[in-house]
């Protein structure tokens, strides 16, 4: 057996601890298992490796661009800061994991285990009551990264094998239970569109579907509103990020002042104007975000494609849980803009609150939670509670995002690297899970998994006869509901007669 040692060492040093090659080989083997031709497998391998390496350049760039500003804030005000955005969060999580001397390759293993758990829970849906398979690849990568750091933070002694197995089960349970919660809201919004949401605000969507009707009146919808045309520029990611970062970093860097910036940031040359330095610094974030997304798109599209294949092949009768933007076609374009605006209002107000109450961490709005979470909430809220709900819910959500994200970035220390995941579930549910894991350790993890698994059971027992029907055949579901309503009315009439 002696001769195997060098082979294993070679494997460990060159593949296992190098995420780019590890991911590349997983894609390569995946293609072979799917019986695709070898040249496609090679192409997939190259795209996955290059995609990951691009992502690495961008993550390093994001954190590096932020570092002098973070140092300045620490130096002058003893503050740390975090952009609440899943890409910044992913970069900060990766930096935290590597800083702790652990390998980021585990992220990919976690993702695969969690996805398998989701498949298992759907296969045994008669017992588990899970109807949805989470297939949004880029979100799975982001969530695996952030959750991996949470587990390493809470269990620093745990070996790699233990980390990936435990987190795989936990995250897979969250994907299954969370996306399963969106079945009813999505089917009602899309009138049987046949998909659920598998994104970053699944518990949020469920809450919105429960409260929106009580907050507003669906007759007063926002379709008649005329919104100013300039708002459409926020549709473009680069433009929106550029503007947001310019506002926030403009203020922060101006307060830090040119002298300090000259001292701490070597990229600020002696003859450059302060204004143009700020513009360049802010737009750099848009540059790295664009590169990061290019990288993610390159290696994730291979992943999503095979997930989609699995979902339609081996799991008939289950629903795919996809990107939240798939719901936007079912809401008025105004709803999307409205959610973004009121979410921004809530976030800005909460950020001012953090400063006034001298919070030890400063939060900077990121585009993804601001736009995608709140726009999604507004689409659902408008359908159920009209204009009023579509304004109030994103506004409150904005406040929660900042406070929850601020707590998480501080407690789990990703603020040291300038980011936190920042989407709704990751500002509410996940910080709670993290705190439970931190203090409850293994008992806490088991408790969280059991509580999550109980949720679909409870919903099932409250609507036994239509629970699977709403996912499988929406028209028939409507008929059953109509019949129920009619017989309830008949009963009432009979009761009155008696």
């Amino acid at each position, binding site marked *: 057996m002696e001769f195997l040692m060098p082979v294993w060492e070679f494997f460990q040093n060159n593949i296992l601890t190098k995420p780019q090659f590890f991911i590349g080989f997983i894609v390569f083997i995946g293609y072979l298992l799917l019986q695709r031709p070898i040249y496609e497998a090679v192409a997939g391998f190259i795209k996955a490796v290059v995609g990951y390496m691009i992502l690495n350049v961008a993550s390093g760039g994001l954190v590096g661009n932020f570092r002098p500003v973070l140092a300045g804030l620490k130096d002058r005000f003893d503050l740390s800061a975090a952009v609440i955005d899943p890409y910044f969060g992913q970069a900060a999580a990766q930096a935290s994991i590597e800083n702790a001397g652990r390998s980021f390759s585990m992220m990919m293993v976690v993702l695969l285990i969690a996805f398998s758990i989701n498949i298992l829970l759907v296969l045994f849906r008669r017992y588990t009551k899970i109807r949805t398979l989470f297939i949004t690849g880029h979100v799975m990568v982001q969530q695996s990264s952030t959750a991996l750091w949470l587990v390493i933070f809470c269990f620093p002694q745990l070996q790699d094998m233990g980390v990936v197995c435990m987190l795989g089960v936990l995250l897979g349970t969250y994907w299954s239970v969370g996306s399963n919660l969106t079945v009813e809201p999505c089917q009602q919004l*899309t009138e049987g*569109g046949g998909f659920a949401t598998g994104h970053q605000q699944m518990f949020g969507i469920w809450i919105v579907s429960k409260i929106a009707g009580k907050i507003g009146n669906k007759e007063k919808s926002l379709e008649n509103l005329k919104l100013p045309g300039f708002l459409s520029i926020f549709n*473009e*990611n680069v433009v929106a990020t550029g503007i947001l970062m310019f506002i926030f970093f403009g203020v922060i860097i101006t307060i830090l002042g040119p002298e300090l910036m000259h001292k701490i940031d070597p990229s600020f040359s002696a003859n450059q104007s302060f204004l143009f330095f700020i513009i360049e610094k802010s737009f750099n974030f848009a540059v790295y975000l664009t590169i990061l997304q290019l990288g993610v*798109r390159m290696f994730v599209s291979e992943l999503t494609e095979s997930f989609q294949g699995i979902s339609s092949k081996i799991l008939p009768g289950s629903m795919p849980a996809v990107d939240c933007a*798939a719901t936007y076609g079912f809401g008025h*374009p105004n709803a999307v803009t409205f959610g973004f605006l009121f979410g921004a209002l809530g976030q800005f107000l909460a950020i001012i609150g953090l400063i006034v109450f001298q919070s030890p961490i400063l939060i900077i709005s990121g585009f993804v939670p601001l*736009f995608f979470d709140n726009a999604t909430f507004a689409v659902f809220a408008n359908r159920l509670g009209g204009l009023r709900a579509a304004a109030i819910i994103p506004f409150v959500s904005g406040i929660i995002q900042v406070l929850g994200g601020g707590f998480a970035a501080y407690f789990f220390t990703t603020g040291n690297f300038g980011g936190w995941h920042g989407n709704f579930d990751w500002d509410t549910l996940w910080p709670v899970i993290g705190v439970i894991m931190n203090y409850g350790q293994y008992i806490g993890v088991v408790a969280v998994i059991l509580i999550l698994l109980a949720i679909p059971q409870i919903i099932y027992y409250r609507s036994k006869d239509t629970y699977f029907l709403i996912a499988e055949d929406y028209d028939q579901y409507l008929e059953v509901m109509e019949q129920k309503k009619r017989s309830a009315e008949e009963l009432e009439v009979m009761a009155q007669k008696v």
Partner: protein
Amino acid sequence: MLKVIAACGSGMGSSQIIKMKLEKVFKKLGIEASIYHTNIGDAKSQAANYDVVVCSDSLIGTFANATAKKVIVIGLKNLLSEKEIEEKVLEKIVNAQ
């Protein structure tokens, strides 16, 4: 060979779903096409290089210029509905020729 681009906000989630559904529909209808996916800003600046742009109904306003340049722009309500995609492909591509 038809050149098609699918677009969505971030160019990752929805646009890829559109792309995969389009592939299925085109295969069924026997249309040969190469399909790409990207974000809305990218698609806007490159639209003139493609024959067809497909996106969500809510983003269709972005491609007003492309429509003027005779690029076919298809807006979808349900990105996952092969039925809707097939109907719109038949209407705007197959029967328009």
